[in-house]
């Protein structure tokens, strides 16, 4: 009974939406990249580096808008580097991704120690402003007034539109499905793979910035594997923006449910609920819940 009342309230809904946001940003980021044929498993690292740059720049300039802008630019530069390795130099994408993850996690900690002599966190700073008026609504206002959360919801429509209704989307997908055919029609495949990687850098930057902004501090390990869960959500969502939306919502729902179960002290072990999304991921991967098919040329250098 308690569990039901714990779920059926606005605070729970708001929480699911908050947990959903970084997952969907990360999963969409990976989706754009994979649709263009570049496997980017470094979403986690990209989120860490944008979070730490947002934190450090906010602290040093005191201007959150500048920090937002600069953190996105920094992530785009890293995405450019990623594309240089995977698209231009045709390095194995998984190896590059692992390298980027390690580099970025290490770099974040290195910067913290260098600047704040602390290996765990930065001082506090202001978060990004929220939409006036709406943010005064109790409980849910915090979520509805958040620009990044609103953008994330619009992103479902935007990314679906870009991928499936525009010329750009068609060409991007051709780079991931059948680059030879695309090339024969005069599409510059490598350019589209670069665009895919850059969009990935931009969206994952928003995910990291959102974390750094809502927590008012950057702490080591704060992304805590959410970049990898985003990848799982992308696979469950079968590389389709709308399906990914529901996959992310599922992850967020189960995570929030875990908290409710824990505090209700029920006999159901919270670890079981914690494991549920992953069990579903495995079931999807082995083809029990529908067939998943990645873009045909996904991960193959061109």
């Amino acid at each position, binding site marked *: 009974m308690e569990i039901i009342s*714990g779920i059926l*309230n606005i*605070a*729970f809904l708001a*929480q699911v939406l*908050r*947990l959903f946001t970084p997952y969907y940003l990360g999963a969409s980021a990976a989706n754009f990249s994979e649709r263009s044929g570049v496997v980017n498993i470094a979403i986690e690292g990209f989120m860490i580096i944008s979070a730490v740059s947002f934190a450090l720049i906010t602290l040093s300039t005191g201007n959150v808008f500048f920090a937002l802008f600069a953190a996105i630019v920094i992530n785009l530069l890293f995405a450019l580097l990623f594309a240089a390795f995977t698209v231009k130099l045709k390095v194995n994408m998984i190896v590059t991704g692992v390298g980027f993850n390690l580099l970025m996690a*290490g770099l974040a*900690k290195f910067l*913290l*120690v260098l600047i*704040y*002599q*602390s*290996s*765990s*966190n930065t001082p506090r700073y202001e978060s990004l402003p929220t939409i006036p008026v709406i943010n005064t609504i109790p*409980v849910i206002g*915090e979520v509805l007034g958040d620009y990044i959360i609103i953008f994330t919801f619009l992103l479902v429509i935007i990314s679906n539109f870009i991928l499936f209704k525009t010329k750009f989307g068609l060409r991007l997908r051709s780079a991931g499905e059948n680059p030879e055919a695309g090339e024969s029609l005069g599409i510059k495949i490598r350019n589209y793979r670069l665009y895919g990687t850059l969009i990935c850098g931009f969206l994952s930057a928003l995910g990291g910035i959102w*974390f750094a902004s*809502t*927590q*008012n*501090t950057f*702490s*080591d*390990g*704060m992304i*805590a594997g959410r970049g990898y869960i985003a990848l799982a959500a992308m696979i469950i969502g079968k590389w389709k923006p709308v399906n990914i939306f529901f996959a992310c919502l599922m992850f967020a729902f189960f*995570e*929030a449910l875990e*908290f*409710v179960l*824990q*505090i209700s*002290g029920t006999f159901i072990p*919270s*670890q079981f609920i914690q494991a549920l999304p992953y069990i579903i991921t495995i079931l999807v991967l082995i083809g029990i819940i529908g067939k998943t098919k990645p873009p045909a040329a996904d991960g193959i250098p061109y």
Partner: protein
Amino acid sequence: MKKNIICIFSVLMVCTLISCEKKKEPASPDNNRLKVGLVFDVGGKGDKSFNDAAYKGLERAKNELGIEFEIIDPGDGSDRESALRRLSSRTDIGLIFGVGFIFTDDITRIAQEFTQKKFACVDYTITHGKEIPTNLLALEFKEDEGSFLVGAIAGLLTTTNIVGFLGGMESALIKKFESGYIQGVKYVNPGCKILTAYVSVTGEGFKNAPKAKEISLTQYSNGADIIYHASGLSGIGLFEAAKELNKLAIGVDLDQYTEAPGQVLTSMTKQVDEVIFQAVKDYKENEFNGGTKTLGLKEKGVDYVYDDNNKNLITEEIRTKIEIIREKIISGEIKIHTQ
């Protein structure tokens, strides 16, 4: 041709890197100064909690005793043993600290290997009937006693009759905080409900602040008005949640008032800094002895914060009640059960 140039450049770069390596410092006049080493727990330096308390102790020893220290902040769990080993194999370091219960097994083994060195471990998990090496000082705190007191404060002050507990890693040590806290709440307010939650079952639970924030928001929205945390760095998530909803939180290990001024009811302090300072001092005066040491309320190893900052929250009346409880725990009239 191009490849050759790249090859030459890479070799040159590697050479520069090698030559950049820190030159061996010439023997300084302070060479005979005592040097101690310390390896941090999950969360590391700057967690504003457990690890920072340990660092504070070292700083004080440096200022007052004129020692030098070297610290290692391992990134992940697996580096812990090698970090201890590295400090132990240094000839100039005689005393090595491991901060955190995670070190229990590693430090025991290494102490047996490096018998000429001294070791101390804070939060060592003492297993009864198991001998520990003579060169190892195992320090254990009675966190349940301190938690009992802050639990009693929370139980007296709650207006909703619901309080919360937020643990970091689900482990025997944190369970000790939880059980003391629950017993403290129940002692003064038997009808009070306690919402308990843990961040994780792994060490990651001590450094996942965003998740800790979401969990505390759930606890607050389900009626809790005071939450006590024992979750290291994750605790900053709790303070964020408390600020957002204007509720009360109880800090741990250090006085965490500055984390969220006005929102921190009190903190359950562990004198980690004091024991580290004391161990260094004993070592300097050649009085360092191995063995186990358990510090509770009686030894002032644990306590709660009562100062100008929270005087208006903890009234004189409550303060008196808590002090009576303290006396009862010390005299053994109140028995705290372990789970």
